[in-house]
C-alpha cells in the first residue's frame, strides 16, 4: 500500500513538473509567435513603403524626363518600328 502511494506521489510530482515545463514552453513559443506576427506586420508595412517608393521612382513622367533629357532617348517613329509575328500565337 505504502509502495503504491509513494509511486503515485512520484507520478503526480512528475506530472506537475511536466505541466509547469509545458506551460513555460507554450509561453515561450507564444512569445515567438507574437514576435513573428509583429515581424510579418512590419514586413507588410515595409512592402507597402517600398511599393510606394518604387512607384514614385518609376513614375512615368520622371522616367520620360530622364530618358529624354539625360539619355537623349525618344519614342520610335512608325518608320523605325517593325512588327514581327509571334512564333506561337497566344
Amino acid at each position, binding site marked *: 500500500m505504502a509502495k503504491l502511494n509513494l509511486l503515485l506521489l512520484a507520478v503526480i510530482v512528475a506530472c506537475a513538473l511536466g505541466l509547469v515545463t509545458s506551460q513555460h514552453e*507554450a*509561453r515561450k513559443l*507564444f*512569445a515567438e509567435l*507574437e514576435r513573428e506576427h509583429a515581424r510579418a506586420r512590419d514586413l*507588410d*508595412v515595409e512592402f*507597402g*513603403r517600398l*511599393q*510606394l517608393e*518604387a*512607384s*514614385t521612382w*518609376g*513614375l*512615368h*513622367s520622371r522616367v*520620360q524626363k530622364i530618358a529624354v533629357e539625360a539619355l537623349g532617348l525618344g*519614342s*520610335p*517613329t*512608325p*518608320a523605325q*518600328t517593325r*512588327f514581327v509575328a509571334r512564333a506561337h500565337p497566344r
Partner: protein
Amino acid sequence: MSRATQGLVRLPAWRARALLAGLLLGFVSLSARALYLQTVNTEFLQEKGDARYSRVLEVPATRGRILDRNGEALAVSTPVKSIWAIPGDVELGRAAKRRLEGLLGMSGAELDRKLADASRDFVYLKRQIAPQTAQAIEDLRLRGIYEQQEFRRYYPAGEVAAHVIGFTGVDDSGQEGVELAYQDLLAGRAGSRRVIKDRLGRVVEDVESIRAAQDGRDLTLSIDSKMQSLAYGALREAVREHHAKAGALVALDVRSGEILALVNVPSFNPNNRARLTGAQLRNRAITDLFEPGSTLKPFTIAAALETGRVTPRTAVVTAPGRMSLARYTIRDVHPAAVLTVAQVLQKSSNVGAAKLALAMPAEVMWDLFRHVGFGTAPELGFPGAAAGRLRNYRHWRPIEQATMAYGHGISLSLVQLARAYTVFARDGELVPLSLVKSGAEASGEKVLSAETAREVRAMLELAVQPGGTGPRARIMGYRVAGKTGTAHKEENGRYAADKYIASFVGLAPASAPRIVVAVMVDEPRADDYYGGSVAAPIFARVAQAILRMLAVPYDAPLEPLDAPHGSDEAGEST
C-alpha cells in the same frame, strides 16, 4: 499493562473529541468559504483578476491597395502614429519638454497652448507622424502622453490619376472616386482580441479572438498608368496652349470595355489637398454633361441608314447651306448644293444632318440614342456618374429633332460618348464599361446592324482624311476613323456666341478597331476653337502612344502625313 504506558497519564476522552470537532469545524468553515468564493462571488473575483492581467487589444486592419492594370501602386496605406495627451496628467521636466518639442517639431509656446486646458481628457499633439519619430517619443516614457496607430494614404501617381482614384478622409474612408466607389471592398475591418499580459506588459497568452481583423482587399483597376500619364501630359499641354478652361479625355479598350485612361485638366495633388477648388475636383469626363455637337452626327446617320431609306451614296440637298425651321435657322460653315450621306458626315453638314433626321420618325432616332446609352448613367459604380438629358421623343418638336441631329438640345458625359462609339468599333455592339481590370473580352449588346456600323465607320474614316473636318487626327501607320465636334456652349439657357466646346471621338485602327479615344476641350480661347484643330491633335498623340503600347500591328502604309492646309480642312459650326 506495559511499562511504556505505565508512566503515562491517561487523558480524558473529551479532549480528543474536542480536537476532532475543532478540526472538523475548521474544514467546514473552509469549505463554506470556498463555496462562497467559487459560486456566489466568483464573477466579481474573476473580473478583478482579469483586470490585473488580461487586456483587450485592437488589431488594426490595413486598407487595400489600388493598383493599375500592370500591378503598379496607385494608392497605398502606410501606418503612421498620432500623439495625444491627457493634459491634466502631463508632467514634463525641462529636459524632457525640450526633447519632446524637438521631436514634435513645435515651439514650446505651441506645446504649452495645447496642454493648457487641464480639464480636457484628450488633446492631439500631432497627427500622422512617422513611426520612427513616434518610437522616439515613446522611448521618452512620458506620463500622460500616448500614441495611437493610424493609417495615411499615399498616391504616388499624384495629379495624373487624381480624379479616377479620388481620396480618403482622415478617418481612412473613401470620399471621392474609386476610393468611394469601392469603399466596401477596400476598407479593412479592425478586429480585437483578449490576451494575458505579464508584469512587464508583454503578451504571454492569447485568450480569445473577439473579432478577427480583416484587411481590405487590393483593387486592380483597368487604368494603365503609363497611358494615363501620357494622356494627362498631352491634354494638359493642349489646354495650356489653347488657353482653355478645362479638358477631359477617355480611352477605352474596345474588346474588353476597360477604361485604359481617364484624365481631367485641371487636376490636383491628392497627397496635399490643402487648397482645393471645386473646378480642380470635378471629374468632367464622368460627372459633367455637355452638348456634344457634331460628334453626335454619326448616330443620326446610323439611325437614317437603319431605316433602309438611305444609303451612304444617297444625295441630300443642302442648298443654300441654310435651313429655316420655325423661328430658327440652321447653318453650314461651308454651304454646298448637294452632298451624299457620307459627305454630310465628312463635311459635318448641319443642314444635311437635320434633313436626314426630319426624314425619319422621331421614335427611330430616340430609340437608337437610348440604346447607345444616352440618358442613362453608365454602370461604372462611380459616384456621381451623370445620366445626361435625352427627352422622350413624344415631346420633341421638329426643330428639336433637327438640332439633336447635330448634337444640340441633348447632353451627355464624355464617358457616355466614348462608350457609344464602341458601337461603330464593334460592328454594332455596345460594350459595357469597366474601371476594374477584367482582361477578358466583354460581350456587347447588339444595337445596330453590322452593316450599318461598318458603313458609318467608313464614313468616319473619310472625315479624318483631307477634305474632312479632322485630318489632324491621322496617325502614321494606322487607319483612323473619327468625328470632330465644335459646339457652342450653352450658358443660362442661351448659346454663347464665343464660347465653344471642341471635341473629337475616334477609333483606331479602322480595319479592326482596338481603342476608342474621346477628347473634350472646354472653351479653347485662342483663335482656333474647332474640334479638328484643338481636340483632334490630342487624339492623334494619345491614340498613337496607346496603339504602340498595345503593340497593335499597322494597317496603313508608313507614309509621312502631310500637314493639312487651309482648303484641306473643313471647318464646322457644331
